[in-house]
């Protein structure tokens, strides 16, 4: 048999091996936003609860870099990240919250239980801002520089080891 006839078999084995290898790899679960390094889009969101201001793009312009935290009272990982956001607040970071598909009573109840690290909370009832900034889930945290540009996206809850990472990025984009 001429060796040329082995080429299809070799190709088949190569692709079967490739497919087998891909099956052992972890599935890509996160969809990174393409809006990183882009200006934060214009938006105005109503207050998510009584007694606290809502959020607009202008809140992110001037002064220090800030964090934009997308969360919800119905989101379990958001409970886990609450103490770490509190630590960021203690470090002097301004965190502006966006409550997704949430009710004012539920927001107030969540803040009573798990603390309130936010200076403002806007209410995003129909994922308007989420879609504008390329967020695909709750929670997500964005670093916004003082010129109102999105500089970093953290997908998932903020954990103990995310805190120093975020502080470093906030310092870098100053």
């Amino acid at each position, binding site marked *: 048999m001429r060796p040329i006839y082995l080429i299809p078999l070799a190709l088949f084995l190569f692709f079967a091996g490739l497919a087998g290898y891909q099956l052992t790899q972890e599935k890509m679960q996160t*969809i990174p*936003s*393409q809006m990183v390094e882009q200006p934060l889009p214009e938006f105005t969101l109503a207050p998510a609860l009584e007694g606290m201001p809502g959020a607009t793009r202008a809140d992110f312009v001037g002064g220090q870099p800030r964090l934009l935290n997308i969360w919800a*009272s119905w989101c379990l990982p958001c409970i886990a990240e609450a103490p770490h956001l509190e630590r960021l607040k203690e470090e002097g970071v301004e965190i502006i919250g966006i409550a997704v*598909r949430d009710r004012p009573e539920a927001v107030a109840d969540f803040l009573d239980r798990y603390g309130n690290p936010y200076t403002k909370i806007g209410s995003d009832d*129909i*994922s308007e801002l989420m*879609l504008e900034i*390329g967020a695909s889930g709750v929670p997500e945290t964005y670093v916004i520089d003082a010129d109102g540009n999105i500089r970093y996206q953290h997908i998932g809850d903020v954990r103990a080891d995310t805190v120093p990472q975020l502080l470093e990025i906030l310092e870098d984009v100053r």
Partner: protein
Amino acid sequence: MIRSVVAALTLFGGLFAAPILAQQSMPPAPYAYVQLEDPVLEAEATELMETLRCLKCQSQSINDSDAPMAGDMRHQVRSRILAGESPTQIRSWLVERYGDYVSYEPEVSSTTWPLFAIPLLLLGVVALILLRRLGKRRSETGGHS
């Protein structure tokens, strides 16, 4: 006795209250489950929604998904179509934010070009082999006659 019954009932009720609080109880976006009045525009929107990928349930189109986020995306598509935007504009608005990931319509880009190039390459190779073989056969038969 009564006090302990009340306490038990409160505890029992509490067990149910907590998960209910944790539910997403917001009404869906206006155009999440409501069709556009104009059937032509609605058809245009549906056609687009069938080719946009749900971000929460990654193997469904937003037209097929009941995830709240897919509803919010349908609302965006329908209200933008109603406002006069073209399906192409809406698709690129989403691709700008989520990358090719959000679109089920394959497009040639820096990562997808091999998908389009490889079949053409293979067809070229097949054509080449065929031509050579046919050419050879023709010259062989030519030799006999």
